[in-house]
């Protein structure tokens, strides 16, 4: 029979529910059993076998199916799947199950790549038809694809594009607000974040959607939950973006599939009414809702330092779930966190509450600090002329003061200070120093000796003059005492970044 994609979907939908349940259950099982990438191909095979068993008419003539066929049948001998398929055959599928046919194994990547483009539009239409086999196969392939994406959460680029295509395909075909919310939320949230454009959130979206779709097939007929789902559907889809880690995702999926299995058993006999995409969308949202319930009332999960670069947000209970409001809430919470940190910085602001008052205090403090700098610079300008010797004394004083705090840095080896300086140059530098004729050279050298003795460094001080210009030699001698304890990384980093030192 001739089947285009839409046809298949229509057909699939009619018989869809049973198969969906089975597929979801099986995929869940497979997921549990072998959460490795290698297990992914098993799913399509399983689903395919089930689909074949379920559907009343096979659709071998479909070119797409043929395309998927080799890859899907790559794991034919799966006793679980076969058992499932046989046990759950509701429709008297007379068509024998060519499950065991070990067709040539196509590369998983091949059909995985093919799937996202084809599968997503199909997912929304669950119509039981002979082409449901292929429908389910594609669906499971999509799921497998998603799993592969899930397995590589930190390789977003390669796995993201097919998934993002899939998601976009889904949103394009369905055009549901919830769907759009689901994909838009990460965009909204990630836009304001300071992190780079990681694809972690869309990837998670894909993962969630895939898993949700798996379970959503089983949840389609539950009309009762649709009303409450409607209100929360965007939340749940936004929650899809709120998964903060693959482990959480895995646990969520497990919980979801547990729920799905229970639902399957309960509602096996009542699954017939799949008419339109609305059900599917709601089922998806329902699934999201169910899945989110166990993990459900988590507070907003901030994973700024986590492996993914996105900040995943979950809509809290009783809060608006619009994607814009979610992003706005993220921003507001970020701002309030920073205000709290500022409150600690600014002295005397612990009792102040409220953004406006805090901002006023902060502004006042910054202004006062700047005025202090100006005043002190004026004071230094007037005082400075008779400072020549005092600066060195000041240096030693500072060093004494810093010693307590910088004891950790004194342990730095002298070689760390300036890697670009060759140790062989130290002797030359030392000679250079002694050859310098500065008025207070004696004082400086005495101070140097004093400082080196105090610091325990014998060598590092002579390294500096090699770096600096001649006119700075005197100044450098002043800074010898300070150099060794300096954080060398910072210094090196600074000198390399082009800033004039």
């Amino acid at each position: 029979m001739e089947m285009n994609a839409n046809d298949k979907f229509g057909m699939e939908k009619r018989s869809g529910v049973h198969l969906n349940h089975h597929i979801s259950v099986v995929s869940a099982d497979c997921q549990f059993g072998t959460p490795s990438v290698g297990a992914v191909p098993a799913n399509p095979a399983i689903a395919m076998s089930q689909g074949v068993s379920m559907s009343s008419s096979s659709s071998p003539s479909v070119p797409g199916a043929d395309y998927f066929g080799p890859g899907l049948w790559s794991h034919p001998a799966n006793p679980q799947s076969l058992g499932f398929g046989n046990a759950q055959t509701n429709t008297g599928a007379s068509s024998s199950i060519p499950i065991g046919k070990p067709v040539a194994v196509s590369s998983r990547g091949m059909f995985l790549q093919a799937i996202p483009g084809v599968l997503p539009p199909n997912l929304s239409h669950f119509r039981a038809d002979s082409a449901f086999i292929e429908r389910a196969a594609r669906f499971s392939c999509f799921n497998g694809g998603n799993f592969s994406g899930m397995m590589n959460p930190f390789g977003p680029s390669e796995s993201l594009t097919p998934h993002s295509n899939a998601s976009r395909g889904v949103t394009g075909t369905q055009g549901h607000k919830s769907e759009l919310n689901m994909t838009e939320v990460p965009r909204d949230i990630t836009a304001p974040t300071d992190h780079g454009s990681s694809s972690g959130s869309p990837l998670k979206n894909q993962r969630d959607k895939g898993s949700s779709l798996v379970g959503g097939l089983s949840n389609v007929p539950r009309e009762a939950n649709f009303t409450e789902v409607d209100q929360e559907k965007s939340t749940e889809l936004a929650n899809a973006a709120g998964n903060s880690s693959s482990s959480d995702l895995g646990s969520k999926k497990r919980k979801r599939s547990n729920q799905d299995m229970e639902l399957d058993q309960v509602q096996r006999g009542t699954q017939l009414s799949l008419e339109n995409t609305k059900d599917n969308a709601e089922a998806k949202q329902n699934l999201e809702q169910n899945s989110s319930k166990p993990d459900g009332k988590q507070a907003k999960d901030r994973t700024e330092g986590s492996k993914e670069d996105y900040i995943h947000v979950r809509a809290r209970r009783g809060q608006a779930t619009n994607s814009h409001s979610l992003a706005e809430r993220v921003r507001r919470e970020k701002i309030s966190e920073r205000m709290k940190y500022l409150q600690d910085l600014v002295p005397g602001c612990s009792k102040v509450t409220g953004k406006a008052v805090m901002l006023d205090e902060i502004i006042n403090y910054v202004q006062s600090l700047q005025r202090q700098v100006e005043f002190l610079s004026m004071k230094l300008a007037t005082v400075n002329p008779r400072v020549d010797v005092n600066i060195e004394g000041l240096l030693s004083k500072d060093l004494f003061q810093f010693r307590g705090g910088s004891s950790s840095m004194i342990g730095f080896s002298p070689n760390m200070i300036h890697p670009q300086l060759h140790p062989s140059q130290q002797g030359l530098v030392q000679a250079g120093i002694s050859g310098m004729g500065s008025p207070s050279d004696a004082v400086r050298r005495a101070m140097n000796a004093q400082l080196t003795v105090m610091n325990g460094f014998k060598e590092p001080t002579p390294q500096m003059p090699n770096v600096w210009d001649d006119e700075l030699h005197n100044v450098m001698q002043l800074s010898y005492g300070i150099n060794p304890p300096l954080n060398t990384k910072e210094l090196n980093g600074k000198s390399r970044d082009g800033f004039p030192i």
Partner: protein
Amino acid sequence: MNRKHRTKNPNNNKLMLAFHFLRALARINKSTSTVSSYQRSCIIKRAAYASMAHAAGPRRAWSRALLYRLRRGSSRLHALPAIRRTRSFSHKRVKVASPKLREPNQADVLRRLVPGGEAMELSSLLKETAHYIQCLSAQVWLMQNVVGSITS
């Protein structure tokens, strides 16, 4: 990573600050001997801000903006360089210098105060402000110590 830096940074920061500032001070002492006291104070002020920016490192938007401003040679340290808006280091929305008069709310005032704050949104502005306050207070502490040790 930010947390770790915060615990170790104050001392590192202060040392870097002291190094740069004292070096600059010594250089100023050596070189400028005939300028007026006011000019001297301006030079010292610029040196203070420069050392502050250097000690803070290029990772901070305000230090980059400050150094940019200093390198441009603007006489007024707190002047608003007109060209800066097109070269914002932050990727977020740039505040357009609209001719319409807006009542300057606190965020705008803060933006003017913190170097480089013109082109930042509020959350990053607050972050930069926090770091700026840290470095400013370190600088003030250092200068107070210098003055104190000189005059004592």
